[in-house]
């Protein structure tokens, strides 16, 4: 089960993921990312506090937007991942391409990486 909440704030958009991202629902995550991008966000945050599991299909969604983010200069960060989920990002090496930080305030304070 996956629920996605979209929270729009002045300088950034947050997608709050609740539950699990697996092969069956990764398309929902993809749609949500797509919508936020189309609305012209400049700074996208993923709130992973309630994310209990992410499969390789879910990781693939994040991965597929990395080029778009760097091309359009969109800032992107993930925060609040539990240890197990963070480990998944680490094993794949995605933590070297995505800013993964402990909490929201750290995420907002991140410098703009071009």
């Amino acid at each position, binding site marked *: 089960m996956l629920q996605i909440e979209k929270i729009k704030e002045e300088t950034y958009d947050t997608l709050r993921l609740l539950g699990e991202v*697996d*092969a069956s629902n*990764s398309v929902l995550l*993809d749609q949500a990312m797509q919508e936020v991008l189309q609305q012209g966000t400049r700074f996208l945050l993923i709130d992973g506090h309630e994310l*209990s*599991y992410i*499969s*390789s*299909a879910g*990781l*693939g*969604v994040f*991965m*597929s937007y*990395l080029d778009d983010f760097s091309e359009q200069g969109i800032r992107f960060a993930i925060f609040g991942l539990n240890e*197990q989920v963070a480990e998944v990002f680490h*094993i*794949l*090496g*995605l933590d*070297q*391409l995505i800013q993964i930080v402990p909490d929201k305030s750290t995420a907002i304070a991140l410098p703009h990486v071009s």
Partner: protein
Amino acid sequence: MIKKSPLSIGKISLLLALLVWVVLVIVDLVRIFALINNLDSGIAEEVTWTLELLFFLCLFLLYRYIFKKNRQADFLTLLWSGASSGLFAAGAGLLTELIYFNLGDSKLGSEPFLQNIFYHINFAWTAAFLFATALLWRRLILYQKSKQVVKQWQVFELAMGVALFFVFFNHNNLDYSFLFGLVILLFLSILLSVNLKWIPYLTYKEKWKSLLFLFLILFSASILFYRILSYGNEARLLINLTDNLFLMALFGFVFVYGLFSFLVTLFNLPTSSVFEQKLTEAINFQKLSQSIQPEENEEQVLDILLDSCISASFSDGAWIEFNPSEQLQLPEALRFIDSDTHAALTSLLPAKNRSWTAPDRSDPLLPQAIRLAHSTYKSALVIPLVVNRNLMGRIVLLKEVKEGFNKEMMSIISTFSRQACIALENHRLLNQAIQNERYQEELKIAQRVQKALLPLHLDHPASFDICAYSNTADEVGGDYYDTYKVDEQRFVLIIGDVSGKGTSAAFHMAQMKGVFQSLIQLGLSPAAFMKKANAALSKCLERNHFITASIFSIDTEKQAFCHSRAGHVPTLWYRAQENKSDFISIEGMGLGILRNQRYENHVHEKTYGYNPGDILMLLTDGIVEGKNEKGEQFGYDRIKTLVEQQHTQSPQEIQTLLVESLHHFVGGDGMIDDDYSLMVVKFN
């Protein structure tokens, strides 16, 4: 002659009837000769009667046989056969009359023998007509018979049978017993004559025809009866065959049922169109209810539906239109209207009846009568067609009168449309099921092909044992493993996992195998291998797919392995000397994530020395992430503990234990929701 075919029964009874009739004529002529000449012929009256009775029996058998043979004949054919035999008998009678009229008072005209021969001929024809008609009536009376009607008929037949022998007691006297018998038999005839269920099934045209035939039968019967009465009064005929209770009663029965049928048919004429309409509706309904075969098309059903709706409502015009998403086209979508009228009328319909928005659930989707402000068509009926909860089309019926569609029409039309929609829905479901079955077959083939992509035999020297196992969540999966012998002491192990699962993963797995098999020939170092693999796979993987892999290049002489990891689950290394195991931690990014030169900074390799008894366990994430009912993952620690405890076992046994342990953890019926593979190596 014991074995009689049905054909011979008819012929035998015909021959017998003729024979009996000839004997009857001879006997009677002998008797007449005796009477005229005041001689004693020695032949009693009873002989004549017995022969007459036999003749009747033969006729009965003959016609019963004929009717049995023509069981499939329709009512009109039957009525015509009755009418024609009546006309023939009456015609023969009138011809005799004419001959005698011409002969006048000549000697030949008063010749008793000739007169009697003619009398016998007429008698035979009359009897034949009566039997034919009576058995025809029997067929009509017993149409859609009930038990009660069958009983009534049996009583009537029995009474007629008794009447056959009546002549032996009554001696051809018109006394009270004769009248009494006649009244009883007529009463029974009237009782039977209310069984006229065949009439409503005739069409309007058929009713007119049957009226004519019935009239002919009644007419012939009247003429024949009149002639029989006149014979009875003629003194010239010395032997009377026709003043017989059985024959009179048969006349009565034929006449009464004929009259009833005639009158009922006549009075049924005005309402026959309603009955025909109902019958057409029932037939249409049956046509619509028949499910369409997969190879047939939906247009036929819709065509029948449109026809049925038009005929059920007597519409002056109609059209059928489809939701643009359906891509359906009927060759005759417009009925009795031209395209200009159609456009004009469409614009007159309320917006609700023009749009194709999904129907509201609360809306019962009944046919809707609409008043039109058009010069010709004053009212319309819009019938929505809903298949799979989608508004797939609608039929619009038009009438030139205001409020032309009544409740009965609307209810029958709504039944029609619902039935047609069910047929369409079933047709679509059936097609879908067939297609699914085909996909299943295709998947089975894919499964077989993919199984063949994994090695049956793993290359290894005597210095280490190896085994591997792979299982897919769906029919096909994205896990891959292989071994490769470089030379006598160098071997390469590889394990890979495509992101996601199912068919798309399986295709990428095949690509991965191709890339790995090519690169492995080049004798690259593990890190160089990953860099090349990344470059190659980046060009063929979909944007949101990646592959993780681990590679081990083992040198058995140096007792060392060089290892590189590309985003793959770390490999467990059990070290026998320390009796301890750890997951080899080496950084490395998955293949296809960074699709440019920068990837080269994210992959590394390292060489480790090993000792005999050491175990390497290569895994895919399906094992680590296997979940139980509580949502807990199998995790790294359980794997580690198991290997440490079971390190003395062979690789095959360790593998079996791990798979069992995983299944036990996930739970009896719990399906492991990802592909999982493992490869176990034990150094000797």
